[in-house]
Every structure is written in C-alpha cells, then in structure tokens.
C-alpha cells in the first residue's frame, strides 16, 4: 500500500509543488461535477508531461496503490471521484496541442486540452464536432474517457467517431500506441474499446482527433408548443421526412421557466415545450430543408427564426443554461441521462409525470430529442427531511422506466459511480462478466479507477469466464444442479 515512500517518489517525479497532500487543498479534488459524492485521496499529483504520467502510474503500480485520472472534473457521473486509499492523477497540466494538420483533418493533443480549444485551433474552416455543454472547460482526456456527446451528435456522432489514435499508459506503466492518425490499422480496434471506458483501462497521454470542415450554412429556429407530446410529434415528423438536423433539442415548461429567468432569451414562460431545431450544411440544401422544417412546425403556438448569429446564440443560451438555472426551481437537483427510443417519448414522459406526482416532487425535462437522450432533472430540497432520499428513489424509477422502454441508463454522462447500481437493469451477469474480461486484459490488478462502472467489485482470475463443465459431467457421470 501507499506510504511515505510513494509520496516521496511522486514528488521526485512531478516536483513537490505538484503533489497535493494538505487536507484543505485536497478538498478541491474530492468531487467531480457530481457533488453528491466526495472522497479525499491520499494525494493528488499533477504531472507535467506524458513521461511524468508514465512514471507516476509505474510508481503506483510498484506501490500497489490504486489511482484515478481526472481531467477538468466536470463529469456528471462521479467518474473522477477519488479513491480514499489511492492517488488522484490530475492531467490539467498536459494541455499542449502538439500538431495541427488541417489538410489531413487531424489534431494531436494532450489529454488536458479543452474541447473548445480543438475547434479554436482548426477554425474558422474546420471544427471538432463533439460539443458537450461543458465544452469550455471539459478536457479531451475526459471526453475520451466518457465518450462524450453533446447537442450536435445526432448528426455528427460522438467522441468515439472522432478519435483515430491514442498513446496510452497501461496500469502497469507500459506504454502502448493504439491506432494513429490513419484509420483502420491492423489488429483489434483497441481505440474503440478504450474510448468510453471511463478511465478504467489506462490513461491516454496523446490523442489523435479527426476534425472536419465547418458547414457553410446554419439555420436555427425555436418553436413553442402547448405540450411536450405535441413537440415530440413534430420531432418524429422531421426525422421521418429524412431530415437530419445538426441539433434538435427540447425543453419542457419547468425548464423554460428556469432558463428564461436566468437568461432573458425571450422564451414565453407559459409555453408547454420549446423545440430548438438547427440545420447545417450547404447553403442550398439547408434552405430547402429549413423551409420544410418550418412547414412541419406550422401548428406550433409560435416560431422564432434566428435572423443572425447573435439571435442564434440567444436561442442556444437558454438551452445551455437549463441545468445551471434549476437553482431557481429548487435548491438541489439530481440529473439523469437516460436514453429512450425516440418513438416512446410521449409514453415515457407521461410515466415520468406520474412518478413525479406520486413522489410529490417536480421534474424538469431537457433533452436531445433527436436521439432520445433525456436529461430529467429531479428537483428537491436537501434541507427538507427525507426529500433527498425521495428524489433519489424517483430518479431510479425514471431510469428503470427508460430501460423498460428499450433504452439505456446513460447516453453521454457515463456510468461512473452514480449509475453503476443501475447496470444490472440493462446487463445480465454474463454481460458484466464479459465487460470484465476487457478490463482484466488491460488492468489485471484492478488499479485503474476501481469501484467505477461495474455494479459490484470484481477480481481478475487467471481463467476468465463463467462455469466450465467438469470432466465428470462431460462423461455423464455427474450433473450440476
């Protein structure tokens, strides 16, 4: 286990000014974006280079000490929650953009580079499509760990579709290169397996990203409807007409009220639902499609078309502020990230409403309507006895309703520590055991981000997999009951 000698070694590697052990300073790192969970690690180390990351991981391996990697700490599933007996490896100093190759659409970055910085580095002609709401602060390393999405992923895809290569430090300190700037390298697609593995397979120290030309035209509107059901029908019509909007986002009345209060974007606070539709692409194609979308929104109570970039930003400001604005509705909220098949939207929203009423709590709904990714915000007041527990129970029932409708427990926030208890609602034991095989191939000692993703702790045996028939059974001599 870790002791003074490990701390000494970390100080030698990263410099003592980059090793945090003081109680008060450790508090900065005890939670990520999900504040419901907190744990103080033994130490926080902030390596300054890929080489230092390798040395830190190797030192932890030799000291048999678990570790957790952290980017900006903006994650919403507790994925970067420290382990108390372990080291937190903060990658915020690795923020160099190492190569920008616009002709080939590639950028090589260190993990601490922010998401927005990649688009800035290749702008104005190109951009990096994944755009989580936290993109100003969140890091590419974190995006890789969580396979982050964002408002524009219905059309453009997720982080995993834009990572072509990784340099990774495995939990035993070995360095491996997975993929590279070129696509389809020989062998298994370990890049695909690594992206979205929530920091449990190793630390990416260099990341090759694919960037693409920016569309020449963007058209944005927001339509207001009397209900989410009505707005949901319009979403289905748009998609079934073969239109693939760059983004299509919905907010319900409670979210509209909160966001409008915070932003004064001009959303009518009595609207039952707001639907933001953004088309992008070529000028001609965009215009034809946009007219079609306006036609499909003809039954809306009102439609506002962005006349310029400033108005587009205003429309988006309300949507992006929805989470932060929830403080106006209740002192605390619990955000979920479930996904449903889009065609089940009306039914699932009705269920959420019933469940909320039964729990005497309010639930605001903000969602990526194109891909069915809901962000129900369960509002509560932690100061009122029993309300936090009721909120948590309600949140769990909402997740279950989404899984029952054929969906997922998480669309973009990750499982982390927060949703691991829901994993058995989606996956059976053989599925979980199969996940564990991948983890064991990378991290047989279980030191990378332990306690995350899997619902119960697991070890890596020598021979993985479930039951194997005993020779006596094979011979028909014995049976297994």
């Amino acid at each position, binding site marked *: 286990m870790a002791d003074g000698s490990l701390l000494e070694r970390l100080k030698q590697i990263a410099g003592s000014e980059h090793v945090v052990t003081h109680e008060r300073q450790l508090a900065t790192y005890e939670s990520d974006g999900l504040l419901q969970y907190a744990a103080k690690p033994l130490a926080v180390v902030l390596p300054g280079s890929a080489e230092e990351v390798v040395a830190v991981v190797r030192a932890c391996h030799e000291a048999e000490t678990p570790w957790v990697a952290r980017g900006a700490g903006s994650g919403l599933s507790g994925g970067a929650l420290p382990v108390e007996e372990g080291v937190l490896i903060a990658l915020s100093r690795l923020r160099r953009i190492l190569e920008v190759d*616009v*002709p*080939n659409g590639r950028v090589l970055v260190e993990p601490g580079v922010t998401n927005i910085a990649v688009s800035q580095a290749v702008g104005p002609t190109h951009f990096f499509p994944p755009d989580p709401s936290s993109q100003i602060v969140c890091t590419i390393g974190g995006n890789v760990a969580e*396979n982050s*999405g964002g408002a524009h992923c*219905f059309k453009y*895809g*997720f982080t*995993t*579709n834009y990572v072509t290569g990784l340099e990774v430090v*495995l939990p035993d300190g070995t360095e*491996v*290169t997975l993929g590279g700037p*070129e*696509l*389809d390298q*020989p*062998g*298994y*697609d*370990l890049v695909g*397996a690594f*992206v*979205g*593995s929530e920091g449990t397979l190793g630390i990416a120290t260099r990341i090759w990203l694919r960037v693409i*030309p920016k*569309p020449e035209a963007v058209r944005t509107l927001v339509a207001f409807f009397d209900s989410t059901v009505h707005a949901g029908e319009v979403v*289905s019509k748009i*998609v079934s007409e*073969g239109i*693939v909007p760059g983004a299509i986002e919905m907010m319900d009345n409670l979210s509209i009220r909160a966001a409008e209060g915070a932003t004064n974007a001009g959303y009518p606070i009595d609207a039952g639902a707001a639907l933001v539709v953004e088309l992008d692409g*070529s000028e*001609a*194609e965009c215009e034809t*499609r946009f007219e*079609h979308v306006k036609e499909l929104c003809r039954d809306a109570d009102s439609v506002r078309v962005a006349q310029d970039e400033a108005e587009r930003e205003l429309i988006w400001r309300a949507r992006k502020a929805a989470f932060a604005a929830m403080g106006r509705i209740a002192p605390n909220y619990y955000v979920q990230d479930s996904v449903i*098949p889009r*065609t089940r939207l009306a039914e699932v929203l009705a269920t959420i409403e019933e469940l909320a009423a039964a729990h005497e709590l309010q639930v605001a709904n903000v969602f990526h309507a194109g891909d*069915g990714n809901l962000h129900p915000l369960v509002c509560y007041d932690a100061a009122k006895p029993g309300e936090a527990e009721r909120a948590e129970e309600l949140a769990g029932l909402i997740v279950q309703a989404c899984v029952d409708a*054929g969906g*997922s427990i*998480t*669309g*973009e*926030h990750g*499982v982390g520590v927060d949703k691991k208890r829901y994993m058995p609602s*989606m*996956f059976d034991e053989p*599925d979980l055991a*199969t*996940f564990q095989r*991948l983890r*064991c*191939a*990378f991290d047989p000692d279980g030191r990378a981000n332990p306690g995350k993703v899997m619902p119960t702790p697991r070890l890596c045996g020598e021979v*993985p*997999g479930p*039951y*194997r028939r005993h020779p006596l059974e*094979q011979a028909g001599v014995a049976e297994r009951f």
Partner: protein
Amino acid sequence: MHVAEAPATREELCSALTAAGEAATPVRFRGGGTKLGWPPAAPPSTIELSTAGLTRIVEHNAGDLTAVLEAGVPLAEAQALFEKAGQRLALDPPDRGATIGGVVASGDTGPLRGRYGGPRDLVVGMRVALSDGTLAKSGGKVIKNVAGYDIAKLFGGSFGTLGAIVEVSVRLHPIAPHTATVLGEARDPDGLARGAAAIGQSPLEHHGIDVAWAGGQGRVLARFAGASPRPQAEAAERLMAAEGLGTEIVEDDEPLWDEQRAAQRGPLVVKVSSLPTRLPVLLRTADALGGSVAGRAALGLSWVRFEEPSAEAVERLRRDFITVVQDRPADLDVDPIGPIDPATRALMQRVKERFDPAGVCV
C-alpha cells in the same frame, strides 16, 4: 476444413462453439463466404461454423431508425426491407452475398463510409458467443448509449478471433431522394489529389469522395445527395475545374459507384491506411508496381489491386504504408496483417486470451 451443420439459434451456435472449445478444435466462422480468403490460413483440423441458420431480422424500428439483425442475415436482404421505409443501413461493401455478421467481423466498407462511417460507427449493440459457453450482449438498441464497455468495437474487424458475433443492433439512415456525382479527370497524381482535396477541404457536404487510378491517369468522383444536390455538385465542379481537372456531372450515378466497389476486389488487393495528403505518393507507387487504385480520398483509405499477384508488390507497399492484404491467391506467401508494434500486439494477445480462453477461434 470440416463444415459443421449450421446452427439454427444463437444458443445452438454457442453450444457448438463450446464443444469445440472443450475439444480444443479450432473454429472459423462463416457468413456469406465472400471473404474467407482474407485471414491467415486455418489449421487443417479447423471446423467451419456457419451463421447461415441465424437469419432473423429481429426488429426494424422504422420510427427510431434502428434495427436488430441476426448475424447470418444477408446485408442485401436487410437493405431491401429497410428501403421500403426509405431507409438503409449505410454500409455498402462490394459483395452482394455478404452477411451483416461477416461485414462487421471483417470491418469491410464501401464508398458510403465517407459520409456515414463504417461498421464501428453504425453498430450500436452486439451479442456475442464465446468459446467457454458465454452468450453476452453489449450496447443496446438506441443510437446514443455509453453504458458498459464497447465490446462491439472490439469484435468489429476481429474476423471472429475473439468469438462469434451472433446478433447486431444497428443505426439506420434515411435514403436521400436525389444524388449527383461530379467526375474530375486528371493525368497526374498531384492534380488528382488536389482535385479531391479541394472538395474534401471545402464546406460542401459530400457523400463520399473517391478516386480511381490506373496506368498514369484517373478521376475523382465526388457524390452529393439530398433534396437538391445539384447546386453542391456544381460548386464542386467549379472547385475541381479550378485545379485543372476535366469535369462532368452525372446524375444517374449508381453504376459509377458500383465500379468503385468492384475495384476493391481482385486477384490481389492490398488495403492501404494512409492520410489524404499522401495520395500522390501512393498513386506513383502503384503505377511503378503495375497496380490500380480505388480510394476514399478524404479518409486516406485505398485499395490497390494487382492483376498479377506478387509478394514483392505487397512488401514494396509495406515499406511506405500501413497495409493489410485482402483478396489474394491462397499460395501467395505474404502475412496478410501488416506489422504491429510489439507492446500493442502483446496487449491484443491478452485481449484474445481473455475472450477466447480455449484459444480455438482462429
């Protein structure tokens, strides 16, 4: 190779695989049988386990643009069904007889990859059978989902060496009502590459930029699709003309793209993973070796085809490029898989040992 009876259910397939695992008999999975010559030769004692009995289209959720298919479903059959709803699975590899399982297991792609990605981008969930009797699933059937590890990506392109793919969930896309393709003719590799790059670097929303090259000349094919593709095609035409290419717009363009797909097959085909700016070097190398090239210019992927197979041609390409050999004569003495860094290879080996503990999936 012994051919086992085609199991009718995934459980039966899993049992057959488990039995092979217990008997330590090597197993190779067979879908449509179109790419059996791609992986390294199997040991003589190998059993061939077919997915021909797994032909159910389990779900087609037209409203959600998703589908669930058993591995043995012929891709063409699934496409015919999706087409009735104006949709498709945006995978268009060359072989008409290929199954969805085989396409995913081989990671094979056609021209649509430029716009929609490959199997790794379109498969959203997967069920697999492993050599120790495990039947497991990952992902789901919604297009956005980050719960659990992405086992589907690991099995995509694995050629069945980790276990059998028995079912996949896929994302579908609407079929665009109209298409138009701009052709740009060139007689020098740099001109051709400039023509392709002019479109690839522009904000035009193309549905694929291919090149076809043989004997010191070739053309760029840039496809546009949508409600009104013509204006984009005309803009692309102007870009290529400015680079000195002789241009033409073709609206009845499907035969052009069939040709591109067909060019990915041949007596010897080497797939090259490169970057768009290295295209001229590749074209010159292919010319020197007597090969022809079909390429996805914006992706940096190319297929070099040789009418007269030789191991030297593969070695020569391998000196400058990342390659895998696809079609080839059985007696050609080449390693189909190009070199892999030892540390990476060791990690791949550990993955293989965990997923195929019996070590029988070859």
